[in-house]
């Protein structure tokens, strides 16, 4: 019998929220150091998303966004998606590359693309590191991959993976914004189906 995310209790969901707090908190600190700017984090949300609604999770399915895909393996396994809308992406590039007129989102040059990938790399690393020092579970993550495309098509990637196990996908969502709210980052951790129970167990022991 495989793990069923639809049977998670409220307490279990709170534990996943705690993972979001710890991981995204550390990712926010890294981003803040990188940009030399204050970064705020919302209270993470744990979402169980239906197949039909997944593509609309962060606004319209056809909204143009930058999505970075990272997967991780080890004691725990899963996927990270970092999603930025086009205004946030431009602002981030402006801060990173120190250039006023960044390329349009659909036509990034190599330096701009690798800057975004590096941001995702640093944030994913920080998130997983915080998670592993809290739980004792270790994981390494892949080199991030960038896609500039419809939000729906990007969000569907982890949903299809979950689709092999059930009809809902577990997203731990954190939003990171800078003080002036010009940059809005969606950071999603999608624990693999077998990893859900490993994480819950690890958090119990830590009580």
């Amino acid at each position: 019998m495989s793990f069923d995310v639809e049977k998670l209790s409220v307490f279990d969901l709170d534990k996943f929220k705690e993972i979001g707090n710890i991981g995204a908190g550390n990712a926010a600190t890294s981003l803040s150091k990188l940009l030399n700017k204050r970064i705020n984090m919302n209270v993470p949300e744990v979402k169980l998303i239906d197949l039909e609604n997944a593509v609309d999770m962060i606004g319209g399915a056809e909204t143009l966004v930058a999505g970075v895909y990272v997967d991780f393996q080890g004691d725990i396994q899963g996927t990270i998606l970092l999603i930025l809308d086009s205004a946030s992406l431009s602002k981030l590039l402006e801060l990173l590359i120190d250039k006023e007129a960044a390329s349009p989102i659909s036509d990034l040059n190599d330096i701009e693309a690798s800057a975004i990938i590096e941001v995702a790399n640093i944030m994913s690393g920080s998130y997983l590191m915080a998670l592993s020092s809290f739980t004792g579970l270790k994981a390494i993550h892949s080199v991030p991959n960038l896609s500039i495309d419809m939000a729906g098509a990007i969000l569907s990637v982890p949903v299809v993976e979950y689709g092999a196990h059930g009809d809902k996908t577990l997203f731990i969502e954190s939003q990171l914004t800078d003080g002036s709210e010009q940059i809005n980052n969606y950071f999603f951790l999608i624990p693999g189906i077998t990893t859900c129970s490993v994480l819950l167990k690890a958090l119990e022991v830590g009580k």
Partner: protein
Amino acid sequence: MNDSIRVGMAELKIVKKNEVLVSLGIGSCVVVALYDAVEKIAGLVHIMLPYCNKIKNNANPLKFADTGIAELIRRMVDAGADRKRLVAKIAGGAQMFSSLSSFNKEILTIGDRNVEAVIRTLGDNGIRIIAQETGGNYGRSIEFHSDSGMMVIRSIGHGSKEL
């Protein structure tokens, strides 16, 4: 024109006469549209994975190419379509992220296997594919018009197409 009818992942819808079926932000999924041009009956299924028997939790037949298409054919016939007249148009099956550096190559390359499974299942059922817009590394949105049987495909940076 009436409001269009959304067909999300693992959904199936059938319409008659002057209506429009839409699926937005399709990545590695494949949408299969079947059409009976005489009765003007159109049906769309939005599949996510290739074969139902390769998956343990296969309770929802509409997720899979093989069982999803079988269900679509059955419901089209129930709705009054002639099975012998059915033709197919298919779209989707992209690979949104490069799998080179990923641990999870199987999922990132599922688009290709979805397309293969769709083509094979339609072939096994004797249904001809009259238009196909699949593969690549970009997302798509589609509209299917039941009055004309036309499929309109939109993408970002890869233009629009009418099939």
